[in-house]
């Protein structure tokens, strides 16, 4: 009886901060719960939507080779994507609707950006895609086998580094807006610039481990069904960031 009560209170995990109610508190469950298979399938759907809309801006660019032709769709996709990402973060219950829209809008942005990079460095897009998905598969294997074990300290380190990078990019952006050259070294193709890009790629990749753990524990503790969309969205955000950083890193290396 005592064992049963303990199981009810803490679930299968020994961690008292993560009990069966943690994910259920996200909203009212409809009986169906989050599963690994459902999350993987939804990630596949989001990836397909992203590729579909990316193809549109990609083709638009290569039809006349003019970057100005894709700018409205690319910038619109970036801003729209940011808006829908914010909505999804603050309203997880809406993820089933907002995450696919986010993927479509980000596809427009990535298609345009990728086409511009491809026109400057032929073959760079397939390299960046291969490296991004290769990293995803490798880290998933390492996570599933228990070789990488995310802990609270690990999360603290990765979240702090991610926020630090965000602040650095923000300062650089603001300085650019006021006519300054910004924080030059982070955009340069010198040793510091490449080192910084490698660091950012590593942090973006390690964010994937946090996503895997979030999805794994969500499905283990019976999170509501809509958390499958949220988990897939979370994975997409990290993958898109990793892909963009891979593009930047490869472009720096090719421009030397």
């Amino acid at each position, binding site marked *: 009886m005592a064992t049963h009560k303990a199981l009810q209170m803490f679930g299968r995990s020994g961690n008292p901060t993560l009990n069966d109610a943690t994910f259920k508190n996200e909203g009212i469950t409809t009986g169906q719960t989050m599963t690994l298979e459902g999350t993987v399938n939804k990630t596949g759907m989001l990836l397909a939507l992203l590729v579909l809309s990316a193809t549109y801006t990609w083709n638009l660019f290569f039809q006349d080779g003019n970057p100005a032709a894709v700018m409205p769709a690319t910038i619109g996709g970036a801003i729209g994507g940011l808006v829908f990402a914010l909505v999804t*973060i603050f309203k997880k219950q809406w993820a089933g609707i907002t995450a696919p829209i986010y993927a479509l809008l980000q596809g427009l942005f990535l298609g345009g950006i990728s086409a511009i990079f491809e026109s400057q460095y032929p073959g760079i897009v397939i390299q960046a895609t291969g490296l991004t998905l290769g990293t995803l598969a490798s880290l*998933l294997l390492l996570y599933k*086998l228990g070789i990488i074990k995310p802990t609270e300290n690990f999360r603290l380190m990765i979240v702090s580094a991610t926020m630090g990078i965000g602040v650095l990019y923000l300062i650089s952006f603001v300085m650019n807006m006021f006519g300054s050259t910004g924080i030059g070294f982070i955009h340069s193709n010198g040793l510091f610039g490449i080192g910084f890009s490698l660091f950012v790629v590593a942090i973006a990749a390690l964010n994937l481990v946090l996503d895997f753990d979030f999805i794994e524990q969500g499905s283990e503790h019976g999170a509501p069904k809509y958390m499958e969309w949220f988990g897939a969205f979370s994975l997409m955000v990290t993958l898109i960031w990793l892909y963009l950083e891979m593009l930047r890193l490869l472009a720096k290396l090719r421009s030397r």
Partner: protein
Amino acid sequence: MDLNTLVFGAIIVLSLGIFFYIGKFRASSKQRDRDDKIGWGKSKFTGLKILIWVMVTVLGLVLFANSFS
């Protein structure tokens, strides 16, 4: 089809295959049965939410300042 496309194309197909196959299985017991697992009681985006609000506020201020310069 050049070598670059062949090699990286193969990596893409293989990686997607691994993700869609392995992703559906639960992690090993070594991963699941630990006492130092992350407590996801707090959203992983809590820190990000704060950062986003700071970014939006700063960007708003920059745009506001720029419109008067």
